[in-house]
């Protein structure tokens, strides 16, 4: 299990672009919003909290396409399907490392994004908490779509069509959390829902991803 995690981490660290590019995309697109509407403040009732989650979803989508692509092309995926002693763990490690390099990383950069959007600094911590709870669902659900489309040479668009509807609950409850946090209200209820989505997809998504990978490898 350590060896699996180590391999995922090493190969992710050796393709630094796959980690930094989505982050750069998020930063630039937030900057665009800040430039287009410089007067907008992320206060109560602001559209910026919604925009924030939308951009996080899109950023996630960008990095999802690469999730299994390299392994598919190199044949490592075939070997994984044949030899994996614990399929659930093998898939989960890949998803976990994807989350580390997308969800967790974006969470760490929240203060920077918050400054760009003109959010109050005391809302940073609640937003980080919300993202910490919500983003695992994005990597987990996204891995199903990534696994289904890995066989297509240009699966990016189909991936977006498949996965964005699945992301909707996360978007709804995530932005509800953030707008409540910005207004200084309790956001325990939507946060619980986010936690529910993340934990139920933790249980189910790796199996679905495994099945989808099998289909993709067989279709080639």
């Amino acid at each position, binding site marked *: 299990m350590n060896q699996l995690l180590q391999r995922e981490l090493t190969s992710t660290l050796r393709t630094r672009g796959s980690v930094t590019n989505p982050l750069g995309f998020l930063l630039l697109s937030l900057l665009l919003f800040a430039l287009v509407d410089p007067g907008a403040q992320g206060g109560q009732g602001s559209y910026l909290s919604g925009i924030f989650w939308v951009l996080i979803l899109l950023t996630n989508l960008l990095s999802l396409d690469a999730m299994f692509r390299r392994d598919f*092309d190199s*044949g490592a995926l075939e070997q994984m399907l044949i030899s994996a002693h614990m399929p659930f763990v093998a898939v989960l490690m890949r998803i976990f490392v994807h989350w580390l390099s997308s969800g967790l990383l974006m969470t760490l950069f929240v203060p920077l994004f918050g400054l760009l959007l003109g959010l109050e600094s005391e809302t940073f911590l609640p937003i980080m908490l919300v993202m910490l709870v919500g983003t695992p669902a994005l990597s987990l659900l996204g891995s199903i779509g990534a696994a289904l489309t890995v066989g297509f040479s240009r699966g990016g668009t189909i991936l977006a069509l498949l996965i964005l509807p699945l992301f909707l609950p996360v978007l709804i409850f995530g932005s509800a959390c953030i707008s409540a946090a910005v207004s200084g209200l309790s956001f325990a209820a939507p946060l619980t829902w986010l936690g529910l989505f993340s934990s139920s997809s933790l249980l189910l998504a790796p199996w679905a991803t495994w099945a989808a990978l099998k289909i993709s490898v067989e279709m080639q």
Partner: protein
Amino acid sequence: MGVGVAASDRVEWGFTSSAYGLAVLDQSQHLHQADDKSPRHLESVLRMLALSCQRDQRDLFEPLNLVVGPGECIELLGPNGSGKSTLLRTLAGLHSQYRGEYHSVAAVYQGHRLGLDELLSPLENLAWFAGLQDQRLDRDHALAALARLGLLAEAHTACYRLSAGQQRRAAIARWLLAEHPLWLLDEPFNALDVQSRVLLNEILYEHCQAGGAVVCATHLQLQVDGKVTLELEPVAEVLV
């Protein structure tokens, strides 16, 4: 010397299933030696029962009836598109469109794609592969396998820096460490130079000597004593 196994639809199963059916037909020495280890030899490594692979609901070759016992090396021949790769993928469990049955022990599968992560070194790839099977990589063992394949100096070099032939040899190290009795190999001689081909033939021979079995699709003749040739017969085209 090879024995063509032209399988027809209705071969008496009891007849073909004598584990050394194929071995006895072939008059090579080491297979008879293998007979002495009788209890192990009686178990078959791979059995195919009227197995025929399909693509798009179309059979690729005439159904196969074949028992592969320990120590046997099957050379799989057939023209391009005759289904060699598909047969190997089926036996490895990667292709589920087939008719008939097969029973196989744990196998190493080597397809056209090598299964090496190009960003990792051969040693790291071996460690990952061991981890997949929930085993720890024995480092000395792994280095010895790489040394045998002439890759000791490259053990820590990322695979994308290696030549095509070197990458292929790194993949062979994976078979050596996997300790699976059955090897399913799809064109393993591609990109290998003359010396490496000789080495690979040796490795295949040794694997069979040690009680393993090999099914190898190839366009080059295997230089393995006691090999059995299996030629896939394309299904006769039916004009509609």
